[in-house]
């Protein structure tokens, strides 16, 4: 533990010398190129200034706080305070049934709730030895990739807005709204979907849904083209983001980075490729990687990933097989409602399953999924009852936020905003 510093130490004993424009060399013409060289400032007795950004600041997009010690406009030191959205996810799920946890997972990364639903159900299903039907797998892949596009649109859109380019935000949000309509048609919700169940899905695709998806996806390439055209070779944007918040791949790995932020440093870790699940190894897509690990690369990698997700959806959308969406296991799947009303066995089955819930065998499992932000892991301990004994969430942005202090120190104040946006820290999954 280092010694505490007192703010009083930095208060000067006597007032700093005042200076006015008359102190400067009056011969210097401000329009001359060597204006800066001719400028002589008297020694200014600067004192560190402490500023507090957040917890509710428009640029934090969530509730966290950066406390910075400034020397002029340079951040000398920074402290990061999180936990303003801590709701005790890991405590409350210990008294819920496994299926009742699914709505809570929506609230982790609320920009891509469906991915969290799938990630959680995938973990429980592996624990129970369930192989979900091929139709369910295809639907899950499609909705996960739609959510990846939507999440990246929010992240890139707001990050570029924070830097000062508002138009891109509208381009992305127009397209994102169409995708949200599609998901609303599927799940009935626009933010907290709760669409998956252990062993399958809540309900099947509505009629004509695949055509709706194809129509909505037509908006996405145009939005990507517009934004990329405005941003990628934009001198102002590059000046603002190139070399800002740089981190090497080695450091990023040591800090526990995963997902697009890590791939922006050049490391090509993507669980969909290296540890494929749900038939991702059968699909044709690439992993975009950056080179410098700065804010620019994070934005560009995300935009490129959206195109890869488009490729995946286009491959899958016409290959959704027919068949059931839930596994045929009375201990996992609720019986059809008409059977419940007419058959005694189905009624008892329904009652037992609702009261007791699904019961994975005793044991422990860690299962990870590549979410838009990186590796979302669920460490689940089951004691054989209907309630999880312990669920530990491994949120991807928890570990990127850990790094924020080291990324902003030495930079400018305005860069804090750019870096924070590029990391895509979502308070819901950061604080749980």
């Amino acid at each position, binding site marked *: 533990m280092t010694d505490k510093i007192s703010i009083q130490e930095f208060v000067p004993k006597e007032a700093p010398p005042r200076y006015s424009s008359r102190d400067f060399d009056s011969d210097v013409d401000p329009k001359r190129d060597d204006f800066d060289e001719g400028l002589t400032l008297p020694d200014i007795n600067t004192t560190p200034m402490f500023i507090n950004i957040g917890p509710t600041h428009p640029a934090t997009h969530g509730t966290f706080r950066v406390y910075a010690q400034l020397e002029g406009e340079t951040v000398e030191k920074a402290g990061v305070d999180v936990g303003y959205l801590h709701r005790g996810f890991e*405590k409350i799920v210990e008294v819920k049934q496994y299926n009742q946890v699914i709505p809570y997972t929506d609230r982790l990364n609320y920009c891509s709730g469906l991915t969290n639903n799938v990630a959680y159900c995938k973990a429980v299903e592996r624990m129970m030895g369930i192989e979900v039907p091929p139709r369910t797998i295809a639907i899950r892949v499609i909705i996960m990739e739609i959510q990846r596009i939507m999440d990246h649109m929010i992240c890139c859109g707001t990050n570029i807005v924070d830097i000062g380019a508002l138009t891109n935000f509208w381009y992305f949000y127009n397209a994102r709204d169409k995708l949200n309509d599609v998901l609303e048609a599927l799940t009935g919700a626009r933010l907290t979907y709760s669409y998956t169940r252990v062993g399958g899905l809540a309900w099947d695709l509505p009629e004509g849904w695949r055509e709706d998806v194809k129509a909505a996806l037509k908006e996405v390439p145009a939005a990507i083209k517009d934004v990329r055209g405005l941003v990628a070779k934009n001198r102002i944007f590059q000046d603002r983001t190139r070399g800002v918040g740089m981190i090497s791949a080695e450091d990023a790995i040591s800090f526990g980075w995963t997902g697009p932020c890590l791939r922006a440093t050049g490391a090509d870790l993507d669980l969909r490729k290296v540890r494929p699940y749900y038939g991702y190894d059968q699909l044709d897509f690439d992993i975009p990687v950056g080179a410098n690990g700065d804010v620019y690369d994070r934005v560009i990698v995300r935009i490129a990933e959206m195109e890869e997700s488009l490729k995946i959806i286009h491959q899958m959308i016409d290959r959704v097989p027919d068949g059931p969406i839930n596994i045929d296991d009375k201990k996992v799947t609720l019986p059809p409602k008409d059977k419940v009303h007419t058959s005694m066995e189905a009624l008892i089955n329904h009652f037992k399953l609702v009261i007791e819930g699904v019961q994975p065998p005793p044991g422990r499992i860690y299962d990870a999924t590549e979410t838009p932000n990186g590796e979302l892991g669920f460490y689940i301990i089951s004691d054989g009852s209907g309630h999880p004994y312990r669920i530990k969430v491994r949120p991807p942005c928890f570990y990127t936020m850990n790094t924020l202090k080291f990324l902003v*120190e030495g930079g400018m104040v305005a860069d804090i905003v750019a870096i924070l946006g590029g990391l895509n820290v979502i308070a819901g999954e950061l*604080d749980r």
Partner: protein
Amino acid sequence: MATRETPKHDALVAELKNRFGAKILDVDRSFDDCTVIVDKASIHDVLAFLKNERRFNLLLDIAGVDCMNLPKFRERFEVVYMLYSIPDVVRVRIEVPVSELDLDIPTATDLWKSANWGEREAFEMFGFNFVGHPCLKRLLTHHEFVGHPLRKDYPLMGGQWCATTSDMTEELNEPR
């Protein structure tokens, strides 16, 4: 059912047993995962071996567990390290039983920087004392919060009144 990782797990477990002997208390291979249960006295050696010589370069997460209500357990608490090796594409979990009477455990912040916040969260939720941690403060809960909320004997309902704002001096001065 064997997966692509199973032979790698076999080799790793054999090597750890060979090298650390009785310090490896047990190995759990259920659900195709690989969990190595390590004695607390040599946890830092095992982690350093995995990091430096077996290329486990990614410490994904640190989880605390309160085993109080489990049917059988070694000690009341456990610290679980989720490790992943990017070059070898293999996962392993390291579990360390920690007694309620001695909550000290050596820090892993000198091996992985991600251990910083992972250990802070485990500290506030369960009360482990990670010896050598640069800034072992509460992270998600308020700095005036009393108790360790994820322990099984901490009540589910209820609240605490926390009023003042943290001055953040310790976070500010945390060494890089």
